[in-house]
């Protein structure tokens, strides 16, 4: 098993913890987190693992920090 820290932002915090550690089986990917937390793919517009952009099929490693944002912008 691996442990991954999840950080959620903006509207994704509604009814969810803004930071949590979850346990996943070896070989789990980002999409498994979305499923576990009931976040749609459209709502996960920006995904960072350890501060770097990542895709849904990216395989997670123990102690990864995963930051997930809904579609957002500014400037």
């Amino acid at each position, binding site marked *: 098993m691996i442990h991954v820290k999840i*950080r959620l*932002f*903006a*509207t994704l*915090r509604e009814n969810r913890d803004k930071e949590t550690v979850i346990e996943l089986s070896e070989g789990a990917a980002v999409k498994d987190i979305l499923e576990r937390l009931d976040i749609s793919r459209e709502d996960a*517009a*920006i995904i*960072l693992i350890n*501060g*770097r*952009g990542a895709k849904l099929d990216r395989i997670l490693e123990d102690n990864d920090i995963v*930051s997930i*944002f*809904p*579609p*957002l*912008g*500014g*400037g």
Partner: protein
Amino acid sequence: MNKFIRIDMTSLGVKIEETPEKYAGLGGRALTSSFVADEVKPTCHALGKNNKLIFAPGLLSGTSAPNSGRISVGAKSPLTGTIKESNSGGSFSQKMARMGIKALVIEGMPANDKFYVININMNSVTIDEAPPEILGGTGNYKAIEILSAKYGEKVGIAIAGPAGEYRLPTANISFKDPEGNIRSAGRGGLGAVMGSKKIKAIVIDDTGAGQVPIADLEKFRAASKVFAQALMSHPVSGQGLATYGTDVLINILNEAGGLPSYNFTAGRIDHNDNISGETLNATITDRGGDGKVSHGCHPGCIIKCSQWYPDKEGKYITSGFEYETIWALGADSGIKDLDDIAYIDRAMDDIGVDSIEIAVAVATAMDGGLLTWGDGKAVLDAVKQIAIPTPLGRILGGGTAVVGKVCGLYRVPVVKDQGIPAYDPRPVKGIGLTYATGTMGADHTSGYCIAGNILNVGAKIDPLKKDGQIEYARAMQIGTAAVDSTGMCLFVYFGIADSPDGYQALIDMINAQYGLSLTAADVDKLGESVLKTERAFNKAAGFTNAHDRLPEFFEYEPCPPHNVVWDFTPEEIDEVYNF
């Protein structure tokens, strides 16, 4: 729109001419930059008699097109020495357009020391002596109140604050918004140009003005509807900006390791929760009172990224409380209290200074030992000294480059003497190319590569790699120059970047208004031509490719947490303008 108003401050004369043929099809930045290139001597001193200041509404301003109320202001910049266009919300642009005024030009300078107010209405343009009670350190909030009482509550106002009167190169031009608060043409020191010409304020009253003529009203309405739908159906322009404001970027850039901190010595902070957009939203909601989570800076804005931030008792402190200001004071200067930052933001608006330039200068001053890291109360006091001005006020008001020199620093985040804004160019490489090559010094809004580097809007490019960044920075600068000419808020980009129909609708609105048949390729050509005009002015003013470089420290000081440096070669950087 056929009136071209020229005000000669040397003779205190007014001429209202027909718009010259060559400017008839231009608006906003395309018009201001063409005019400055045509009539301003590139080597002139920006605060001398040969500089000219021009105000122009965008092509679509004054119509019912959503978000089309931006006013462009142009001149040679006293901060950078380059050509400058700075645009702002407020009601000024739409009033000018409805009155049929294509441009307002101010030239020359009076021999005496008096300040003046230009008063424009449907019957006349007059040059009045400024009321003494708005001069000599009076803040913009009070001055706008006094001018509104004198000239009418609904008039539009452009004003140079105390910093503009003192001709400091960080002085902005502030515009009255629909509620009497302040929006700003912030960057490049155009308030100092206004002050040098002894114009304290310009008041515009559109009572009696008709509607902007539209060649094909039916087509215009249809296109406007499609455009509004594109903005509203995109999650960023339709929802995200209204909910969290631009400050939502604090957490995104912090997680991405690109949030410049403690004068660009790191890309991440620990106190992000104190200053984030999520906290801003929650604070406004909890405090209630005058607080508004969402607010439009000009009539017809449907994105509503602005907000009213109240104090603990619910009383209004400031509006238009932007990410860049909160970043520079919160992350780059280490101030951990959002209320402290809000009071400093209000003071900067009131004094009439660029809230990016001053806040970056504050962080640089902290690095240089002039101020203490994180001391918000001391910063507020120092910023207020600009209105007096004390020597410290003048130093801060001189901008980041001046502060860096005064403090003997090499880590001075400027390009062409303009402070680098809220995205570190080492881990977010696309924006670094924009900072380096933009025609107006370091300016994120001149080619917002954050969209495709970080936000996954319009493109998906790895911000830590060089691949694809040159072409992207070029395309973003060209597109932005075109959008800046329409009167549109730049944030419409979020709604149309991934929506071909929305983009086409923007072009269709221009075509319907002017009876044209422009294509997307024509719009690109307009953007290219604006950039080429601006670059030619800069070249004639003495700028070369060697000025298109980031400060050297970015090349040898790695930025944690990714520990990367700026690694584009000069030859690669020069490719951005190879078109």
